[in-house]
């Protein structure tokens, strides 16, 4: 039984072809993979945007622990003075030790040993947006009051992360393109097989005056039907997969991975995949039939 009912008679009995049985499953698998690729791309975009928002225009200064609390405080105050005097710095605030300990917990565990461990003092610095800082000059100045002080410019590792996420994004696009090409190829050859199986019927239709488009429409509507059926099946399978990934993602500590925000447009793209698969099937089958019929007299 057809999923879609067109107001046309089906002169070519395509419903009983072997391709009719396996094509929806194949399209379902392709749509499933495509949905994963689209969501993976969306996640990459979301994560890199979060990272960028979170750490751009900020840097962190580390002051190594000294021999005494008094020395530590003098060094921190000296560094803060230099930082606050810099024109690019909007805010420079020391990070409380308890917060530093909580940042280390994902790696070192919730151990009391951290309480007695000499940890570097961290200063969180916010910069004016878009303003460049000569890092080396600033570090040199800070080292005069706090030897061994270092500056962690987040933009360096952020650039690397963004490059990595962009590479993964392109990888997802390539996978998506391969899926599209494989789907087009499959529909094309299934259609060609259908043409060969039903050559007699097509010849009769041709000889009684059917336009090529009349014959092509029958194959195209059949492929549209199968594409939509397979697409919805693939989408239905992708739903639980997304839910599973989301559950696993939530189990990972939020200090390591930011929250993911997939936009409405990206969800619309995923939801539209069955329609894209159906349209692709329709056009591919139509082109395949018209190209073949053009060889007839």
């Amino acid at each position, binding site marked *: 039984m057809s999923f879609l009912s067109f107001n046309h*008679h089906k*002169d070519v*009995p395509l419903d009983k072809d072997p391709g009719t049985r396996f094509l929806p499953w194949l399209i379902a698998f392709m749509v499933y993979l495509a949905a994963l690729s689209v969501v993976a791309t969306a996640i990459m975009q979301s994560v890199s945007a979060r990272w960028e928002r979170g750490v751009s225009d900020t840097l962190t200064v580390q002051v190594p622990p000294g021999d005494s609390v008094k020395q530590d405080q003098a060094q921190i105050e000296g560094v803060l003075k230099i930082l606050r005097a810099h024109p690019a710095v909007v805010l420079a605030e020391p990070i409380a030790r308890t917060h530093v300990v909580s940042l280390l917990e994902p790696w070192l565990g919730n151990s009391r040993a951290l309480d007695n461990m000499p940890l570097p003092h961290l200063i969180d610095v916010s910069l004016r947006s878009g303003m460049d800082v000569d890092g080396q000059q600033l570090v040199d100045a800070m080292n005069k009051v706090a030897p061994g002080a270092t500056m962690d410019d987040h933009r360096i590792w952020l650039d690397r992360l963004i490059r990595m996420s962009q590479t993964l994004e392109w990888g997802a696009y390539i996978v998506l393109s391969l899926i599209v090409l494989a789907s087009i190829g499959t529909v094309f050859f299934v259609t060609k097989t259908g043409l060969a199986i039903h050559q*007699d*019927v097509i*010849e*009769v*239709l*041709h*000889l*009684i*005056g*059917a*336009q090529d488009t*009349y014959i092509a429409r029958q194959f195209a509507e059949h492929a549209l039907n199968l594409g939509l059926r397979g697409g919805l099946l693939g989408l239905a399978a992708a739903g639980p997969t997304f839910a599973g990934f989301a559950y696993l993602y939530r189990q990972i500590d939020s200090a390591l991975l930011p929250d993911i925000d997939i936009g409405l447009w990206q969800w619309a793209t995923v939801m539209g995949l069955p329609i894209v698969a159906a349209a692709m099937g329709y056009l591919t089958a139509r082109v395949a039939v018209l190209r073949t019929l*053009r060889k007839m*007299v």
Partner: protein
Amino acid sequence: MVIVKLENVGLRYGVGPEVLRDVSLTLEEGAFHFLTGPSGAGKSSLLKLMYLAHRPTRGLISLFGSDIATTGRDTLPALRRQVGVVFQEFRLLDHMSTFDNVALPMRVANVHEKDIRKHVTELLTWVGLKDHMSARPSTLSGGQQQRVALARAVITRPRLLLADEPTGNVDDKLAVRLLHLLEELNKLGTTIVMATHNEGLVRQFGHPRICIEDGRVEQMGPLRPAHRPNVRMEGKIR
């Protein structure tokens, strides 16, 4: 008006010998011709040229005044829709009912479904197959299949009807009745070419002949019968 005109037409399949050589013939509107000749002489090939299943390897073919060589491919279906064909092996579509087989040329011509139902039912009643409208062709007898094939060929009232041995596997009585049906269509203006081996029918019905032998064609007058059969057309054929 000239319906079909062939000028010095030749046809060969692939690199084989010419199956038709220097064929020139003209069919006027309303003509009825028997196409005769021994098996393998090229009767079916000549009909295939006329219903545009093949292009000639040389020469000119004109159908309803259109030169086929210069007619665009998109225009050919419109010409084909004016030609009814009864194929030698009927070529009925087994996955369809008798009704749908006969309706096919109308559906291809995009006729409204209500009109299709009316005309197909009328025609199938006329050829005595009203009770077999939903039967698949494979369940019909040879004679019934022949009538379905004929009904499919004439449902759109074609200007030219080409019948390739339509009486090939029916008894003489039914053959005569089918000939009467063709004559009725001919009276309504359809030009008819009917390939046959049945010399008795050719003599009985006395239409002009297109004789084909060894790929060459000659238009000849009717074979004179000893007498014209006294069979009258009835309401339907059984």
